[in-house]
């Protein structure tokens, strides 16, 4: 059973339907006690980082997520749900995150090394560069295109957590992982076949049903 963490800031509908298509049992809960016994969790997220951290706290999920990570329960953060797992973000002033991955979230500068400007958000289909193909999450996931839409990006010195990146004027961390905690900057449920395969790998390979 997968628990979808509902703190009021995710596109839960599309994620839920994607799990239904994969025939994965799930439940959605807006308080930890409603989904405390699940085998794995999905942390979705759309919106602004400070609002999301506040909402996570209001719903009582901050200690819950940290506890589950300590216990080694698989968790998959999507989009903003991935960014929340890092130490902090500069979105809307400096805001503290969950600190479960080393690194911070910064805005795309919008200007490259040569001084020419580029468009922000990073929006559209971009190719994955896979760095750790042996990870279970990446079973049969190739250097495919996935759908990104974000203005803030992960900055980290810890290359060992980068399962895959993508190039958009800088190296964009696309799939992150350490142990049973994994995440993607893009929406797997909106990224065609490779995205669905990632979700399936998480739900059926990483999570023991």
């Amino acid at each position, binding site marked *: 059973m997968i628990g979808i963490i509902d703190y009021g800031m995710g596109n839960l509908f599309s994620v839920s339907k994607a799990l239904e298509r994969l025939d994965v049992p799930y439940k959605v809960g807006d308080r930890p006690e409603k989904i405390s016994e699940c085998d794995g969790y999905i942390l979705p997220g759309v919106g602004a980082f400070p609002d999301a951290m506040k909402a996570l706290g209001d719903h009582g999920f901050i200690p819950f997520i940290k506890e589950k990570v300590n216990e080694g329960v698989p968790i998959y953060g999507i989009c903003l749900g991935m960014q929340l797992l890092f130490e902090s973000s500069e979105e809307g002033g400096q805001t503290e995150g969950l600190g479960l991955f080393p690194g911070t979230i910064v805005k795309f500068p919008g200007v490259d090394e040569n001084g020419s400007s580029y468009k922000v958000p990073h929006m559209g289909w971009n190719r994955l560069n896979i760095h750790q193909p042996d990870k279970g999450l990446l079973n049969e996931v190739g250097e495919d295109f996935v*759908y990104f839409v974000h203005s803030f990006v992960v900055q980290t010195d810890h290359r060992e957590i980068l399962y895959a990146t993508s190039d958009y004027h800088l190296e964009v961390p696309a799939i992150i992982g350490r142990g049973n905690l994994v995440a993607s900057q893009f929406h797997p449920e909106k990224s065609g076949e490779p995205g669905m395969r990632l979700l399936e790998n998480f739900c059926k390979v990483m999570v023991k049903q």
Partner: protein
Amino acid sequence: MLSKRIIPCLDVKDGRVVKGIQFVDIRDAGDPVELAKVYDQQGADELVFLDISASHEGKKTMIDVVRSVASELAIPFTVGGGIRTLEDIKETLRNGADKVSLNSSAVQRPELITEGADYFGSQCIVVAIDARYDEDLKLWRVYTHGGRTPTDWEVTDWAQEAVRLGAGEILLTSMNKDGEKTGFDLPLLEAVQKVVSVPVIASGGAGSSEHFYEVFTEVDADAALAASIFHYKETSVMNVKSYLKERGVTVR
């Protein structure tokens, strides 16, 4: 590097696709979900659904269409047509759409762009602009209400204002080119590309694969939208993409 996006557009009235789409092997050619699936299989990068229902019931039906599309497809889609309030935006996005497209309502009440962007983020808010060239004044004028109502806005001014207010993307239709199948309106697109920092979707005028190549290489449009050439099988998304790929344009 980002791939160039090809976006088929479907007009939906009272829950059915109109404009007579000619695909084979579809039992019910008016079903938006079935058609969306075909386009998905052909490699469409995104879809736009334009609700042209006039009635309140028709609008309600659109929400069912949104839910069905989001239930069955794993590609992003935009919904436009008749979205007038923040409540409309919320309802559309919560039922599974990834973006909403605002047109007349944004010109009438520009704060709607900001309200939507503040609530859901700019990436969810597309501002659709219909523009026609004014021969006397030598400028592109913005029209609303399906091209029936001229406004005082010049297109680059309105595009910049829309972005300043929070638009995350501009869907730019040339009324001069729309339906002509003689190619996209490159001067119009170039003028808007120069002044905005968000992705621009080219619309109006697609008649062949070559036209997509032109719009991607000559004005560096981020995406291109078309309706009839795909609906009437004059070409397919797949054909356009292989044409582009052969010529070195990055496509998915």
